Structure formats: structure tokens, C-alpha cells
């Protein structure tokens, strides 16, 4: 018996994979049904649905980039402390001290790429009319995913705590100051007064809620860190599960009737 066979005949292997290698038709079907990761997929699929020229594999690429971001992100968290004292220096050390220091590069370029592939995926779904019934709801889930992808990228942009970071976030979040009614420079903010006291000030408006302070500071760093590393990824993961589930439930990848 070859080594491969010994392994494949062992009790341990068989406890994990409950069937022989997927080399014949029967086992190729069984593998799709018994493997947790593979059961995301159907057993068989229309040839058109997996044509690269049709889907561009863009949703899949986006999902893979999300996984890359998760893994590199967890590794980055080992080295990074979200405080004014350490944030910048930790990033600096990632480049200068860590050997093979491309962790940050992988994470940053992966993030840019994910924004782009999400757009391209939406573009493909639109151009094939795949949002039409019965897939309306999945398109809506997708739009929320798009928004969350942008927010993930935006909240991460602040974390290096360099000039690029805080000013990009300052410019971006200044808008919230002008939120109608809820921003202290927004139209109609005078409406929220109680007994002559203005309720919407620069210490209580929408921008303050976003930043946790009147300007981009340590509270903002903490807030964005938690949003970036925990809150948004969790929501994205949940929505992705729904998104994939619905692709199957809506009849698989779209195609002409």
C-alpha cells in the first residue's frame, strides 16, 4: 500500500471524509453533499452559470478578498494598538521591524481590490438583469453589502493614524455635520429645541455620534477600530450567509428561461 492509501484508509481520515475520493460520478455527488464548505454549492449546475464570461467570478472574487481581509486583519490586530500613543508607531514597526513586512500591504491592497470587485460584481448583476424577479431581495442584500464594504474600508482608513488617515476621515465625516435636522450645521436643525435650548450642537449632533467627539480624536480611533474589526465584519458575515443562501433559494445563478 502506498502512503496515500494508508492515509486514506485510516480511521482518522475516514472520520473526516466519509466517502472515497471524488473520482467517479457517484462520489463527486456525495462530496458536494457531505462536505460543509462545499455544500454551499449545488451538486450540479448549468454550464452557463459557471462560465467566466458570464459571472466574471466577481462575487466569488469579492468573497475571497473578504476572507483575505479577515485573515490578514486578525494578524494585523496582533501588532496594532488603537491608541494615540501606539497606533502610528505600531504601523511604523510593521514596516520597519517585522521581517517580510507585507502584511499591511496585503490588507490595504486587498481592501482597495474588494471595493473595486464589489462594484464590478454589481455591474455584472445589473448588466445581466439578474436583479429581476425572483432575485429582487438578493439585490437589496447586495446593496447593503456594498454600503458595508465601503464603510469597512472607510473605518479602516483611519487606523494608521497618519496625516492621510485623519484628514480623509475628517473630510468624510464633516458631511455628517450638515445632516438635515440632526447635524448642527444642517438645514432645519433649529427645529429641535426644547424650551429655547438648542438640542443639536456640535457636541450632540450626527457627527458627534459618528466620531465620539467634536473632532477626529482618540474616541474616534476607538470607535472606528471596533466598527472596523468587530461590528461591521460580523454584520457582513451574516449578510453574506443570507446572500449565498438566497442565490441557491432563488434558483441558482440566473440564466435565460
Amino acid at each position, binding site marked *: 500500500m502506498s502512503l496515500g492509501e494508508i492515509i486514506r484508509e485510516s480511521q482518522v481520515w475516514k472520520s473526516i471524509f466519509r466517502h472515497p475520493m*471524488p473520482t467517479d460520478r457517484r462520489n463527486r455527488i456525495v462530496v*458536494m453533499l457531505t462536505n460543509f464548505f*462545499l455544500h454551499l*454549492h449545488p*451538486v*450540479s*449546475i448549468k*454550464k*452557463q452559470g*459557471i*462560465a*467566466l*464570461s458570464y459571472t*466574471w*467570478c466577481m462575487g*466569488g*472574487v469579492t468573497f*475571497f478578498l473578504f476572507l483575505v481581509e479577515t485573515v490578514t486583519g486578525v494578524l494585523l490586530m496582533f501588532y496594532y494598538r488603537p491608541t494615540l500613543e501606539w497606533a*502610528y508607531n505600531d504601523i511604523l514597526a510593521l514596516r520597519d521591524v517585522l521581517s517580510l513586512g507585507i502584511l*499591511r500591504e*496585503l490588507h490595504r*491592497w*486587498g481592501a*482597495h*481590490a474588494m*471595493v*473595486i470587485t464589489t*462594484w*464590478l460584481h454589481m*455591474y455584472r448583476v*445589473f*448588466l445581466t*438583469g*439578474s*436583479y*429581476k*424577479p425572483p432575485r*429582487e431581495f438578493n439585490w437589496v442584500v447586495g*446593496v447593503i453589502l456594498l454600503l458595508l464594504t*465601503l464603510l469597512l*474600508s472607510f473605518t479602516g*482608513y483611519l487606523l494608521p493614524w*497618519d*496625516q*492621510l488617515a*485623519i*484628514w*480623509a476621515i*475628517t473630510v*468624510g465625516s464633516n458631511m455628517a455635520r*450638515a*445632516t*438635515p435636522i440632526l*447635524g448642527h450645521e*444642517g*438645514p432645519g436643525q433649529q427645529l429641535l429645541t426644547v424650551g429655547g435650548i438648542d438640542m443639536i450642537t456640535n457636541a450632540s449632533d450626527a457627527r458627534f455620534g459618528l466620531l465620539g467627539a467634536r*473632532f477626529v480624536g482618540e474616541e474616534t480611533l476607538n470607535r472606528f477600530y471596533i466598527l472596523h474589526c468587530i461590528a461591521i465584519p460580523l454584520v457582513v458575515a451574516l449578510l453574506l450567509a443570507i446572500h449565498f443562501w438566497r442565490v441557491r433559494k432563488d434558483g441558482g445563478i440566473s*440564466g*435565460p*428561461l
Partner: protein
Amino acid sequence: MHGSHADYLRDVSGFLGGYFLAIALMNAVYAFTMWRVKSRPMAALVWTAVAVAMTGISAIAWGGSPPELAQPIKDYINWLTGPVIYSVGTTVALVVLFVFRKFFVNPVVAWIGLNLSLIFMGLSMTDSNFGAIVMKPDNVPIVGLVFLLGFFTWLATAKGVENDERIKRGLPPTEKLDDEKVLVWPDLVYTELICMLALTAFLLVWAICLQAPLEEPASSVKTPNPSKAPWYFLGLQEMLVYYDPWNAGVVLPSLIIFGLMAIPFIDFNKRGNGYYSIEERKFAYLTFQFGFLELWVTLIILGTFLRGPNWNIFGPFEYWDPHKVLALNNVDLSQIWWNDVMHQALPKAPPGASVLREVSYVLYREWLGIVLVLAYFLLLPPLMATTIFRTFFLKMGFMRYMIMANLLLFMLSLPIKMVLRWVFNLKYIIYIPEIFLNF
């Protein structure tokens, strides 16, 4: 100045040598497929010649004197990238691409286009101003985005045009031909594996070649000029030129998200579901393309590459001079009406007037703008329902039609405001700074 240009050329010559060599290789592969796969020896010969020429240019670039764009051409392009010509020009270009799409989907035409744009990029890189913006690490992905969008738009259009022709002849779309079922293992699983490996390799190379940016430590007193939001929000930041923040930063983005979500419920057209097509859903197609390619992507490109210090526009080959001063003499509609038409000062409540009195003065001052905006959003929808959108209105019902009409009008208000700005220097149609309500 001259010495530094020579230094700059030396710095980029290695990169450009590799760059032109890559173009040469690309054309060599193309020539090879022409010869072996397509059996078109003449075409193969032509593209081999291109590959040889590019190899020559590559060698010259490596030698330290890469070919450059002539100054008059650069000046001309700088002039072209003013906001008016840029916006009108990109719109016209998209219209031309759309109208003559049967011509542009021809692979040879597309290949020539790709070559020309790559060569143009290569020549432009010899300009240090151009190089400085394009090679800014966070801007590199946008260059990628432009080429990817170009490719995928071409691909989708090619498939759409083919399907449209088939449908006209009574044939099903090409997607229908691959109707048979295959097993996911191995067909899909292996494709995914290869995609993952290729992507991992790509990311690794990218990460090794290009270092992530890290500027000086954050300082809340040193404001950079220009201060830019992350690139994917630069379309929104560009809208700040034409709108106040409450609109550009809050209302319009919310409407974009809401509008995107509403698409499946607005589009009542049952055709064009599950295959590429243009003729089957022309209105939806054109609206989306205009919104995405023109109002979103080209504004991002403008904001990233052409907006410099003080948010002035700079041509791609122009030095980002922080002292460049542009006369700003924008006026509001109420000023035009009262000062220029009525030849009198703006109406103003006497000091100490009651709130009610003050409000009525403001309304009186801004009456023209308020009437115009109300007419735009309240009168146009019913008007369109009885004219150009008659069939839409009948098929969609009141609610859906109203939502679509208002979303459309909001979307179109951006180009309208742009044109008003360029032609009349008009800043606000309604200007009520008293309550931050400027439109």
C-alpha cells in the same frame, strides 16, 4: 528644472522598460493566437511587428531616454481637462461608444484601443507631474479600476450586441446554448481553486512591489492641501463643488443607496433577465450606465487625478501649484433676479423684525428659486407622466412611477447644476444661509 527632469527620467526608465516589454509580450501572444488559433497569418504579421516595435521602445526606455509626449500635446490635454470639456467630453465619448457599439465590440478594434491607451499611459509617465499623481500608492488601484471597467464594459457590450442580434433573428441568447448541467465537482470547484491561487499570487506581487502609504503622524493643526476623502468617496466630494454638504454628503448618498435598492422594484420590464442584452432593456441600461460610468466613475477620476490644492482643477501634466488662484465670482439666483433683473438690493427684513416677518422676507427674496425647485420636483413628474413616460406611468402605477421620477430628477439635478455653474456662474438656486438651506 532641467536637471531634475533628467533625474526623474532615470528613476522611471527601468519601470518603463519593463512596461513596454510587457506590452510587447502581450502583442506577441496576440500575434501567436492569430496565427495558430485563428489562422490569420497577415494579422499575425502585423501584431508581430507591433511587438517588435514595442521591444525596441522598451530597450530605448531602459537606456534612460524613454519616448515622451511633445509639450504642445501635453498643453492641449491640460486644456481639455477643464471641468466643462472633461464632463461634456466624457459624456459625448460614452454616447459615441454606445451608438457605434457594433464597431467597438470588434475584438481588433478593442485590441487597438487597449494598445493605444497603454502606450499613452507609458508616454505620459515620463512627465513627473503625471507620474506623481498616478503612482501615488492609493491611486494605483484607480488606474486598475479604469482598465478593468474598460475591459468588462467591452465584454458585456460584446455579449449584449451578439444577443441582441440573435434575438432579432428569433434565436435564443447565447447563454441558452449552455443549458446542459455539469457536476460542480470538478467543473466549478477547480475553477474556483485556480481563481483563488491566481488572485493570491496577484495580491502577493502587488504587496511586494508597492508599499502601503504612511505619511507623517496625524496632526490636527496641519491641514493638507488638498484634503481628500478616500478615493471611492471622491465622486461625493466632487459634488460638494455644486451642492452644500447636507445634499452632497447626506441626502444624495442616501438617495443613491435607496435608488439602487429600488431598481428591481422600479424596473417592470420582464425581458433581459439572465443574459446580457441592451436592446431588450434600453432605458434601464442607459440610466444605469449614465449614473455609474458618468456620474460616479468619471467624477472619481476627476476628483482623484485632476483636483489639486484648493480643490482647483489641474491638467494631468500640470504642476500642482498651491498658489494658483482662480477668480471665483459665483452668484446666486436671488442675486441675479434682484440685482440684475430688478436692479435693486436684496430684500431684507428691518432689524428687530419678528420671526414671522423675517421668514416672509426670506421667502420673498428667494421666491424665484423656490418656485423653480418646486416646479422641478412637483410639476415635472406629472408632466412627464402624460408625455414621455406615458406607457411607463400606465404600467407602473402611481407610487412606483413617482419614486422613479423623483429619483431620476435628483440624479439629473447634478448635471443641470453643473451646466448652470459653467454657463451662468450660478451657485445656489435657493440660498437661505439663515437655516443652512442652500440648494
